[in-house]
């Protein structure tokens, strides 16, 4: 019957339905019970891989908002390292890429063989390719298996080499730094600040890493993105440096050094112990050219302690460190040398270890007046030589102790100058050494050898770092018993010399010689404390720290600081100490210093013994110094170098404004360049004229691209107008005194 057959067929349909439903039922049961644990594990504990995202580094501005350091995007062609392990693959990839990225196959092979690259990261083959090349390679990705375009950022210094020592440079993390940076979360291939502000503010400039967390399958292939945290850019930093002034100081410094190299120092005949006369250095001719290899200068505001300019020569272009130089090329530009005259990568203004010579005398004068050893109107009879009074005469005669110290030679007489009666004001104006020799001996004797002179000058910051935000700052030394002992242990002085600290050492210290050492920055900061009536500040290099992303200004090369959000501001300088400085002590010192740099002449001293007129050391140089310029008080210094040969004299000068509305102080130190008035003083004078708006300044312009074929660390830069070097009786540049 039909109905039966139909029922049978419907039964078949029902059976099919049952079978299919059972099939999925069983499969469901299987997945959700038997395999559930395994599958669930793959969900909860599925493997992840985290890719760190490097933030964009903060920028560095000058006081006006000029962008001194910026980051730019660089596209790098890189290849999956695993793919390169097989020689056949490597050859094929290199062969295909060679033409596109313009790198010979052999160079790429050499790179691979160098072992410099991590096997876990794509190996870079060519940095800084153009957008077009990158796009072309990406479009042909099937022809370039494993080839990636990495976006990296590179540091650019638009105004290099200006302020290179202050800004510093970046470099790869070194082996010694690796543990430290790793602990902070750095990636091994990141570049970090290695010098200057880049190093000092690495933490602020760097920013926070972002990350991408991928879920990966068993073969480590990314399955999906689990989490993405974008990186946070670093803070932007505004320096106190005024790049206009910075450029001028650099040019003035280099101009003066260049000038001094053209000058000759005498190699006079001297009497030998055996009575014969011969030249000081028989190996040298009658006149020896100055080497003038290096120097530095610092200009600060003594009210705010802001560093306006800080120059060091020889200088360098910090873009060399971003140019991907080969090791050989790098050594060519920055030769490894034991000669300190030639070291480039050192900021002499903060790292130089210098005798200060007579520039140190105001601090000794302070010590004498403050301790009551001398009054401001106590006179000392300067007879040209100083004979020590507290040493046993027999020991002097036996030659065991040096008991006689002389003034500098007066050019008119060829003998040590004799200034006659001098008080502290006169002694500073004409730089009477014997006045200070006496202080050195008497302050030692009056305190039974206690380091009172040391303690007094340390008030002005000597013997301790200033704490400026720059790496590798030199602490400086003020000689005392401990220092001599330590130096003897280190073999710097003989064991005999290191046995004790004697009055003779103090006599040397009193004129800034001996084991005293300080940086030009310390010198400027010490003078700042004289200028501002006793406030010793920590020098400021940073004006403000801004939240990330200060926009560019309409003016090319500038950031728009009006739109910046301040993260941290440094309006008030950090006071290291307030030095007791009564006007009756301070004013005679300032008056003496003022005579050194007073324009118009006639501020010198007629010797009460000989009647000769003795000029202050700056009289000729500052003779025509305009009345409208920042009025100065300063002090020259000449630090004797190896063999006491004249051509080894280093030239020092420090001066400050006595106009409190223009509160600037400056020091300059030019190595192996002659007297203080010859090399360092012109740099300071010119810079103050420029600061007063009375010397023409070159406009600051962004630099030309780095010339990669050059092997100079930095190109020459000199003043176009050198009229500020003029001094009375000379022709400006080249005038000897």
């Amino acid at each position, binding site marked *: 019957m039909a109905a039966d057959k139909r029922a049978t067929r419907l039964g078949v349909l029902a059976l099919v339905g049952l079978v299919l439903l059972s099939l999925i039922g069983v499969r469901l049961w299987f997945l*959700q019970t038997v395999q559930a644990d395994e599958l669930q594990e793959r*969900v909860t504990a599925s493997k992840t891989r985290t890719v760190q995202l490097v933030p964009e580094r903060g920028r560095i501005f000058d006081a006006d908002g000029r962008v001194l350091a910026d980051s730019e995007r660089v596209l790098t062609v890189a290849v999956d390292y695993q793919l390169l392990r097989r020689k056949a693959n490597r050859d094929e990839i290199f062969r295909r890429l060679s033409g596109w990225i313009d790198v010979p196959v052999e160079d790429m092979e050499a790179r691979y063989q160098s072992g410099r690259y991590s096997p876990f990261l794509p190996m870079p083959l060519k940095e800084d390719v153009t957008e077009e090349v990158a796009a072309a390679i990406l479009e042909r990705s099937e022809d370039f298996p494993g080839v990636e375009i990495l976006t990296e950022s590179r540091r650019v210094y638009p105004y290099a080499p200006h302020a290179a020592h202050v800004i510093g440079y970046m470099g790869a993390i070194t082996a010694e730094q690796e543990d430290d940076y790793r602990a902070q979360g750095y990636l091994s291939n990141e570049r970090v600040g290695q010098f200057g502000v880049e190093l000092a503010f690495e933490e602020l400039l760097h920013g926070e890493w972002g990350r991408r967390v991928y879920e990966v399958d068993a073969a480590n292939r990314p399955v999906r993105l689990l989490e993405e945290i974008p990186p946070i850019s670093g803070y932007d930093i505004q320096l106190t440096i005024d790049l206009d002034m910075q450029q001028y100081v650099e040019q003035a410094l280099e101009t003066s050094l260049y000038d001094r190299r053209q000058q000759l120092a005498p190699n006079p005949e001297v009497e030998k112990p055996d009575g014969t006369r011969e030249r000081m250095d028989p190996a040298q001719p009658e006149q020896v050219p100055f080497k003038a290899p290096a120097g530095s200068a610092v200009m600060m505001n003594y009210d705010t302690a802001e560093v306006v300019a800080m120059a060091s020569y020889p200088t360098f272009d910090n873009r060399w460190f971003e140019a991907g130089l080969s090791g050989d090329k790098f050594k060519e530009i920055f030769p490894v040398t034991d000669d300190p005259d030639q070291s480039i990568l050192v900021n002499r203004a903060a790292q130089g270890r210098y005798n200060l010579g007579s520039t140190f005398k105001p601090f000794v004068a302070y010590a004498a007046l403050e301790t009551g050893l001398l009054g401001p109107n106590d006179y000392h009879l300067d007879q040209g030589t100083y004979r020590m009074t507290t040493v046993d005469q027999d020991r002097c005669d036996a030659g065991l102790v040096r008991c006689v110290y002389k003034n500098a030679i007066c050019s008119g007489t060829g003998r040590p100058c004799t200034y006659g009666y001098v008080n502290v004001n006169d002694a500073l104006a004409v730089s009477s050494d014997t006045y200070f020799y006496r202080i050195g001996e008497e302050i030692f004797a009056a305190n039974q050898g206690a380091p009172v002179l040391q303690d007094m000058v340390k008030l002005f910051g000597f013997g301790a770092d200033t704490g400026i935000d720059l790496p590798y700052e030199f602490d400086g030394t003020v000689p005392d018993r401990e220092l001599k002992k330590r130096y003897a242990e280190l073999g710097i002085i003989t064991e005999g010399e290191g046995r004790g600290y004697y009055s003779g050492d103090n006599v040397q210290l009193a004129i800034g010689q001996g084991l005293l050492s300080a940086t030009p920055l310390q010198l400027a900061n010490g003078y700042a404390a004289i200028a501002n009536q006793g406030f010793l500040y920590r020098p400021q290099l940073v004006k403000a720290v801004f939240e990330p992303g200060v926009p560019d200004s309409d003016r090319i090369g500038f950031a728009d600081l009006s739109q910046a959000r301040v993260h941290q501001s440094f309006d008030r300088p950090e006071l290291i100490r307030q030095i007791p400085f009564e006007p009756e002590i301070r004013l005679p010192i300032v008056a003496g210093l003022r005579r050194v740099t007073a324009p118009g002449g006639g501020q010198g001293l007629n010797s009460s013994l000989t009647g000769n007129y003795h000029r202050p050391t700056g009289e000729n140089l500052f003779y025509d110094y305009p009345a409208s310029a920042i009025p100065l008080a300063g002090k020259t210094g000449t630090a004797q170098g190896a063999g006491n040969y004249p051509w080894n004299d280093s030239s020092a000068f420090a001066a400050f404004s006595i106009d409190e509305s223009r509160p600037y102080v400056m020091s300059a130190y030019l190595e192996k360049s002659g007297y203080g008035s010859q090399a360092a003083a012109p740099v300071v004078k010119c810079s103050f004229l420029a600061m007063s708006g009375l010397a023409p300044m070159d406009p600051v312009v962004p630099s030309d691209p780095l010339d990669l074929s050059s092997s100079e660390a930095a190109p020459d830069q000199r003043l176009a107008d050198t009229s500020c070097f003029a001094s009375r009786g000379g022709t400006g540049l080249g005038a000897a005194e």
Partner: protein
Amino acid sequence: MTFTLPGRRPDSGLGNLGSSPGDPARNVDWTLLVVQYALTVIGCFIIYSASRTRIDSDPYAFVTRQVVFAIVASVVMVFVMSVDYEWLKERARFLYGATLVLLALLVMVGLVTGQDRITFDLGPFNLQPAELAKFTTLLVLAAYLADERSDEVSYPRFVGGLLLVGAPTVLVIMQPDLGSASVLIAMAMGVLLVAGAKPKYIALISALSLVTVGAAFVGRFVNQYQIERLRVFLDQETTNPQLQDAVYQVRNSVRAVGTGGVWGQGWLQGPLTNGRDIPVMWADFPFAAVAEQFGLVGGAALLGLFGVALARIWRIAHLSRDLLGTYLCAGVFTMLLWQVFQNVGMTLGIMPVTGLPMPFISYGGSSLITYFAMFGLVQSVHMRRMR
């Protein structure tokens, strides 16, 4: 044709002359109706759970539309229930012809624009003619076979039936929509089986459909992604980078099911459902959301509901007073069975991925309306079995 609202209690009083045991309104299959609405409501919840994290602006975007679709579908169903299926049978040829025209139009639009077209974009609603084809082809095929009042399907009639089904199937393949084509073929096989086709006819259909699909692949009528899905199904561990998207879709779906375990992670607690791992989960992989959130218990319960629905349809096929009703029910039965099996099967990784939605559960208006209409047809058969 008479129609009164089916909500009325039977024999509720004397003088109720419109009411008799044969009154269609008194013979609604309430079990089937309740199951159908239960599935639809569950579907709305599943759509919400699977889509709420995908659209940030409005987590209710999909489920709101689905509720609107369900209301429209209900109206369509009430209409289909209210008319005698004999009345529909008389209009089957017209409806079938209209469907063919729509399908052909779609293929032509596709050829002209050079894009694959599965829907007509009608503003707020995308019309999928392939869904319409399921209904009309079933109607025309059942009518055609029911005309031959015999236990066996004669060979000429078999060939005729084949042509009737073949025409829309080929057009659907050309869209290309292999999933919907497979539903049409399954329906044809089910109806022909019940109508008494010889086993060799069934074998012939199978062979023909395989050849057609093969030809579609060779003739490049299918999409790139359809080829990829098939390749992935054949090699689920493939490392071919072009296939990875498809691989992970399936792999994640299986993982979601496994994560559910026996009791499930709980409502809105499924990590993969909440994530973005399974593309278009609310339409293509709703069962993964069910299995992850409600586990084996929930999954089995849902399959059980489908089982009840199938059993009721099968029973109505049995009860039908005429061949047409039986055939219609057999067609709906096969389509529902096949589509559930195919969709759940691909979720569980035992069938290749096609875009076939899960009836009543998946998001999508065309599918929902089609199934409501077909269930209305089944109810219509049940309501008129006493006549």
